[in-house]
């Protein structure tokens, strides 16, 4: 038995496996396949102030070991979400990580205000990969100042014991600069990473496949990029908790993120092909830690950053025992 509990700032979770925003709706559909309260948390699809229709179809293109999506944040709006979806999650004992998205700093602040004090709210994830309508559609997540304004506005409205995570885009020159700006603005932690911008062209119609032309690339195809981003953010900000995500399909994939520095992971696109993937990944991760001799999940977080002299001999049975408590 491995102690799988984890902490993200002031909040603790029974285990480190979460769903990913946009890949689990608000939990109801996946509850047909497993108990959503068995996960560390359910990260909801990004919710906006108003109902939103999303973009035209086709909204999806399968690519090698990945997919492009251009949904356009279709959703019911925050009021319907608070009426139905959040209470549903709370009733089931699930820990809701509510992802919020807006077009202005003010919209983010209003969303955070509406979430304040709601039962079942375990954490807020700020989706900053949205166009800033007050800055010619420049994406918040690509600009340290815009990112920090959003995070500060949200942090000011969310109760102190509820972690606020900023979800970072990999489509930037230096992800650590954005990470630092978010943390300086009050982010408890960082969700790493959002999708990469991509484009697929249909060679029969000789036009872009997606109705929205470009789309976000996700799935195992982006995993090495995601692990690199987690690694860099962990190195730059070793004390800031990271929710790692990007193409996790198995427990060993999840372990890569953990070793790179993630205190929890989200299973996203894999759910589309395997609705029970989150609970499977949790079981596989626990097993992977067990056979490596870990008594506590927390001891594995960031372990790939340990100094070279702390080597794990190949023939060692429980490798975890060779390392000091809380390594590195």
């Amino acid at each position: 038995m491995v102690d799988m509990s984890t902490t993200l700032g002031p909040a603790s979770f029974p285990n480190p496996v979460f769903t990913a925003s946009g890949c689990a709706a608000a939990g109801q559909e996946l509850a047909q396949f497993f108990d959503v309260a068995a996960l560390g948390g359910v990260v909801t699809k990004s919710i906006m102030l108003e109902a939103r229709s999303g973009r035209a179809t086709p909204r999806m293109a399968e690519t090698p070991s990945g997919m492009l999506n251009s949904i356009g944040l279709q959703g019911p709006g925050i009021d319907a979400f608070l009426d139905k979806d959040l209470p549903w999650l709370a009733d089931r004992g699930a820990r809701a990580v509510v992802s919020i998205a807006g077009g202005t700093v003010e919209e983010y602040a209003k969303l955070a205000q509406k979430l304040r004090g709601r039962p079942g709210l375990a954490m807020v994830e700020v989706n900053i990969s949205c166009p800033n309508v007050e800055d010619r559609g420049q994406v918040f997540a690509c600009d340290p100042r815009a990112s920090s304004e959003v995070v500060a506005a949200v942090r000011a409205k969310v109760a102190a014991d509820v972690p606020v995570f900023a979800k970072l885009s990999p489509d930037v020159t230096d992800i650590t600069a954005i990470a630092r700006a978010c943390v300086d603005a009050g982010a408890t932690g960082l969700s790493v990473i959002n999708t990469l911008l991509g484009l697929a062209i249909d060679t029969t119609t000789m036009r872009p496949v997606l109705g929205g032309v470009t789309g976000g690339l996700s799935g195992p195809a982006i995993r090495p990029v995601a692990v690199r981003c987690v690694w860099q953010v962990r190195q730059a900000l070793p004390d800031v908790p990271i929710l790692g995500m990007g193409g996790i399909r198995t427990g060993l994939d999840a372990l890569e993120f953990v070793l790179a520095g993630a205190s929890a992971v989200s299973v996203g696109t894999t759910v589309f092909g395997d609705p029970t993937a989150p609970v499977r990944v949790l079981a596989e991760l626990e097993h992977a830690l067990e056979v490596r001799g870990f008594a506590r999940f927390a001891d594995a977080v960031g372990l790939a950053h340990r100094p070279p002299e702390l080597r794990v001999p190949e023939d060692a049975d429980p490798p975890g025992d060779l390392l000091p408590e809380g390594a590195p």
Partner: protein
Amino acid sequence: MPVQVLGEVLSVKRVGAYQAMTVVAPGLPELTRPGHFLAVQVGGPESAMLLRRAFAIYDVKERGVYGGTVEFVFSVHGKGTAWLSARRPGDRVDVVGPLGKPFRLPKDPVTATLVGGGYGTAPLLPLAHALRERGCRVDFVLGAGSADRLFGQLDAKRIGQTLAVTTDDGSVGERGRVSDVLPEVLAKSRSDVVYACGPMAMLQAVSAQAAAHGAPCQVAVEESMACGIGVCMTCVLPVVGDDGLTRMVRSCVEGPVFLGDRVRWSDVGTVPPDVVGAPTGGH
């Protein structure tokens, strides 16, 4: 409540231009109604193809030598379906189903016309059985590009009171589209209800002709899906609700069966400006 089963393939048969696969799927047949679909993983556990392929359920058997089985029909037109067609008895495939909302059945013994395009006929055959069990009269109109792309013609002939066939190339039946013969069939059979499954353009034409005839029409749509279970939001189309408002609804959970007169056919593939949550200046 769908089930997820790693089921053994019992058979893969060529049926004209299509393939019919039967998989052992305990628990699935009992839950299945005509119009339900299933979603199959392709390429194996290490597959580079992440998304499930969705197919209408053709036939289920609750009991038998192999336990519960499910059969579905598909057309090979990509790497995923090519992989599926290369499965052999004894191989295993991961199936999730039944999914979606099935066809609604009439309470009274009415006269029903069933219109199938290509392998869209597959879910109509179990529907025809269910209708017959309720004392309904069933008439079939089947269409396809060519004779080898017609599906279920013999079964339809056996179950239905009448069968009209059209092909684009005239290789069997009348040359033309189902919409060339449907009005006459509806008039002759005095059809009370219409059910259809096939390409979107066909469903649009059938919905219009059913409406002109005054018969309610249920259609099972074919939208491109990523998950089949309602979480990915890719398979949406504009549908008018009971409140008269149009929403982008998921064909996997709110469909695949819709009332033909509720789908805004001409706006499929767009976001109509009057849809709930349509983009304003802000987005």
